[in-house]
């Protein structure tokens, strides 16, 4: 993931009348990386990616796509971007295939290459059987998939997805997330905005937490959790020598507090998944018969709460 960034944003600012929607945002997305902008509605996510995609004029700052300056009038970097807007940006009176062909032509595709890409994308988004039906006859999930498919047509180096699962049923949502995971695996950069913590945790290599137009923190999930001092907790239930087990566990590297309760021990650690086998071995050796294990890890929701003092879906 180390190399030239596909997107580099520095000092970005944008004002709408009296409202400063973006207040000096900096971030970069590496080639092959999935970068998430996580924040509540109205945080400035859509404004930020609209500027990155060249749709809105910025008031200050700089945006580079693959090293090329991006502005409202520049055409070249746009060819590298596939945009999936939050709204269903498709024509309901055209068929799925007609929609794909139209947008493909705008990206310079024609003839056999256009036909080939349309068929490939229809296959990827699972609409081959309904390709010649009008879009207004599609279900909501099918329209969402077509919306994403249009962004993939020209095989962009960077895919920008603006809250692609808003208003989608759970089944379609899962299908969309799987598609994004597959796209990430294919090596292209993905810039993904969401206010769903689970999506950011599942999809993103790095997350930028955005609130009131500012990027308040940035990093991998673990980096963010560490940043705010949150730890994993492992609850061991069982019987036997609980106090001896507590002493032994407390002496291990990477273990913070160990709190004994009635029939359980709660171990605070920096990385529960890595230490779990060792915790079990040490507790058993100290004479505790472990019957049940529970791991609770802090999530981005708690990070967001810690950083901003409010919940993601306030």
């Amino acid at each position, binding site marked *: 993931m180390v190399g030239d960034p596909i997107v580099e944003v520095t000092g970005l600012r944008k004002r709408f009348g009296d409202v400063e929607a973006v207040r000096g945002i900096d971030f970069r997305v590496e080639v092959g990386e999935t970068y998430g902008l996580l924040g509540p509605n109205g945080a400035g996510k*859509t404004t930020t990616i*609209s500027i990155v995609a060249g*749709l809105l004029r910025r008031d200050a700052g700089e945006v580079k796509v693959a090293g090329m300056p991006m502005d409202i009038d520049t055409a070249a970097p746009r060819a590298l971007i596939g*945009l999936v807007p939050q*709204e*269903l940006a498709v024509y309901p009176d*055209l068929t799925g295939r007609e929609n794909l062909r139209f*947008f493909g032509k705008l990206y*310079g595709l024609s003839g056999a290459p256009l036909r080939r890409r349309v068929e490939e994308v229809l296959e990827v988004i699972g609409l081959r059987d309904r390709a010649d039906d009008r879009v207004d006859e599609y279900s909501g999930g099918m329209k969402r998939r077509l919306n994403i498919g249009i962004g993939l047509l020209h095989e962009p180096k960077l895919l920008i997805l603006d809250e692609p699962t808003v208003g989608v049923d759970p089944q379609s949502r899962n299908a969309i997330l799987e598609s994004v995971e597959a796209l990430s695996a294919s090596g292209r950069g993905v810039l993904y905005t969401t206010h769903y913590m689970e999506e950011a945790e599942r999809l993103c290599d790095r997350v930028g937490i955005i609130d009131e137009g500012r990027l308040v923190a940035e990093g991998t999930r673990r980096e963010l959790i560490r940043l705010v001092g949150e730890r994993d907790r492992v609850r061991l239930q069982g019987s036997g020598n609980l106090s001896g087990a507590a002493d032994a566990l407390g002496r291990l590297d990477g273990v913070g507090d160990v709190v004994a309760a009635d029939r359980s021990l709660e171990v605070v650690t920096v990385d529960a998944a890595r230490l779990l086998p060792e915790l079990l071995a040490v507790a058993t050796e100290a004479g505790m018969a472990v019957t049940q294990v529970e791991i609770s890890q802090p999530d981005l929701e708690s990070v967001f709460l810690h950083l901003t003092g409010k919940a993601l879906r306030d």
Partner: protein
Amino acid sequence: MRFILTIAGKDLRLRVRDRSVFVLGLLAPFLLAVIFDLVLGAPSEATFQPRFAVADLDTGPVGDGLVGVLRSLAEGDVIDLDEVGSVDEVEAAVEAGDLDAAFVIPAGFSQAVTSGAPATLRIVGNVDAPISVAIAEAVARGYAAEVEAVQLSVAVALQAMPSPTVSDVATLAAEAATMPPPIELVDVTAANRVLDTSTFFVAGMAVFFLFFTVSFGVVGLLEERQAGTLARLAAAPIPRYAVVAAKMVVSYLVGVVAMAVLVVASTLILDARWGDPVGVAVLVAAAVASAVGVVAVVAGFARTAEQASTLQAIIAVSLGMIGGVFFPTNLGGGFLAKLALASPHRWFMNGLADLAGGGGLGVVWPSVAGLLAFAVVTTVPALYRLRTMEPR
């Protein structure tokens, strides 16, 4: 250019599929023109024919002259004429409503005229037919003026003769009566430059609805912004002006096709007479350009498609009324006639009226220039606004 055609092709496909362009662009103006023509046009043109009678009790040359004038009007189907033998018969027919007016030429009328004595021509009018009576009076006055001109000519000629005889007087009178008038007025600016009823209403409705028809293209820009597809178009690697240009191309094409179909259909079905085809084509091309400009400037300053449609409707109706597409406002002259020139509709109708006068391409240039001025004044600011429109 390739991208403009691609976007325009997509828009045209959408417009054909939703069918509204056919309803608003073709069906509505044609049906309204037919209705207007049926309600206002046909009856007044087909049935108004004054019913006159003449009772010639004189049988002299001057009385015969008037009867001859009336006969020629009857032969031209301008009036319906009965010739009767008595005053009582005339008065009874007028009283019964069988006649609108009657001319009574009293006995001795010719003798009185040629001898310079007072002569009276009597008109019996039906009080329920004031227009026909007014026409009868106008005919009588016209004939009296002609007789007076002959009397004057004879008097002038006799003064130049040292000792004229009765025979000289008769000869001079006969020559003066057959002389052509020294000044003949030929109206080429009014009567000949008025469109017939069918053409007036078809043309009026066509240009009125044109300002709605062309909105399909340009206002589509606002619809795309609301739907989110404008963001996708703006994100594509195409020149920023291509989207706006495509919308204007669609507006223009739809407008031209709608007008062309209406011109042909109304000519074949309603017997409308549009005039020289080349002149009409140039006039239509300029009218569509002005309509696209007006719609574009509305779209440029509106926030939503709904707001644009409402504004567009208000402006189209106002310009239509000022421009006289429902009734000819310029015939009254004065302020209304001047105000009408602030409407592209008026320039279009003026151009058609010029063509109806028998002119070709040469007579429509002033109207074409007026329409193109509207197009330029509206399109330039519209292009600036639309080009800088943010897609979300």
